[in-house]
């Protein structure tokens, strides 16, 4: 039973199972991580609760909204519906891993330049879906961008500036590579 809501069936928030802790070893944002964790914990809960990486958000908690999107072993995934233990040995990038030496990445800067965020709740997920897209396709057309972020819901900014930001970042990244 959930202590916080004292409701057995309707409680969707994380409750420590009390089961013996299990070792998890992975790499998060280029840093090796060794932790002892509750085996029933999701990867999202692990990132936020154990590593205090609060950039990754919980929206729906069921893989619908994309706010929890991270990159695991090169793939954009919804961290809310992955068990933390499934990340054993994995290489993970969260939104905190996009900037380098305190400097925003091109993609992040283009989100600012195009006013591609308002409340910002969907932004970390949008950025990670966009990052994964640009990693696999450095020159995406508008259709490819839309498909890549179809699983990321934005309810205030609107998608048009987000699509422009990703498109522009792709162009700038290509230019940077050619230099």
């Amino acid at each position: 039973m959930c202590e916080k809501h004292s409701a057995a069936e309707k409680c969707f928030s994380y409750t420590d199972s009390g089961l013996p802790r299990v070792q998890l070893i992975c790499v998060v944002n280029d840093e090796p991580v060794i932790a002892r964790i509750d085996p029933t914990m999701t990867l999202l809960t692990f990132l936020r609760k154990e590593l205090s990486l609060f950039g990754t958000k919980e929206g729906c908690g069921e893989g619908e909204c994309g706010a929890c999107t991270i990159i695991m072993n090169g793939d954009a995934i919804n961290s809310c519906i992955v068990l933390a233990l499934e990340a054993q040995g994995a290489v993970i990038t969260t939104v905190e891993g996009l900037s380098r030496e305190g400097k925003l990445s091109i993609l992040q800067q283009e989100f600012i330049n195009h006013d591609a965020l308002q409340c910002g709740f969907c932004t970390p997920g949008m950025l990670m879906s966009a990052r994964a897209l640009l990693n696999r396709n450095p020159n995406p057309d508008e259709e490819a961008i839309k498909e890549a972020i179809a699983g990321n819901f934005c309810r205030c900014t609107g998608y048009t500036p987000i699509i422009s930001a990703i498109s522009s970042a792709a162009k700038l990244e290509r230019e940077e590579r050619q230099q």
Partner: protein
Amino acid sequence: MLSRFDYVRPQLLEEALAYLRQNTGTEILAGGTDLMIMLRRNAQMPGHVLDIKSIPETKRLEYKPGQGLFIGATVTVNQVAEADFIQKKYAALVQAANSLASYQLRNRATLVGNICNASPGADLAAPLLVYDAKVHIANSQGNRLVAINEFFTGVKKTVLQRGEMVLGVSLPDVTAGDVSIFLKQARIKGHDLGIVGVAARLAADKVCRIAMSAVAPTPIRLTKLEEVLNAQPLTAELAIWAGEEARKLIKPISDVRSSAEYRLHVSGVLVKRALTQLLDMGGK
């Protein structure tokens, strides 16, 4: 999540099957895109979660000329969509894979998970039905093969018994000139469950197969319709007739995504459209 479960991730199939036999209340975890939601909602509270992603047999994805295609139980939907040999040979399967949920979910969701979850609207079921796929099932006593049209037994129900797991599905090889298509009607373009799904295939021997999802308690083959279609050459007129006829063979329900009436209507449209497009692709 209120479940208290052991998480095990065996490296060997034998270990997994022994674990399944010994531990009642074990849920198999592959992509987790269905199971994790059930756990979160406390709709399922298993005592054991068996992650099968480290078992080599489940990772197999290969095509062998003359033998066909094998898709292991932990092969993701995106791996299916992106495999060039599937794109070349099994068009309907790729189209259905690309229509499923969102890109992030397709990176986790597996084709086998989609059929084991046995939703009436499983996007990948109709293409597997028109390709006469076989489901490879293992238990600690041995393996058995079940034809995909006998795999589903009801809403969220399959022939799988306790102690069994699906290793993968195999699809017979297809010869040149074999064309197929998958059409899905959803409320929006993008991340949505289907209102209706139709897969149609015209094999090189001109035998036509049609299957549908979300129009009956299980995904279904329209075998009665196929019999009539296969008794004569496929024409544009016949495609229109088939669209009308398909409506008589299905029993859709009303739900949050669509009324039964709309499902009936759009089913006919999609069957007609699928057959017409097969004709355009040089089916005859």
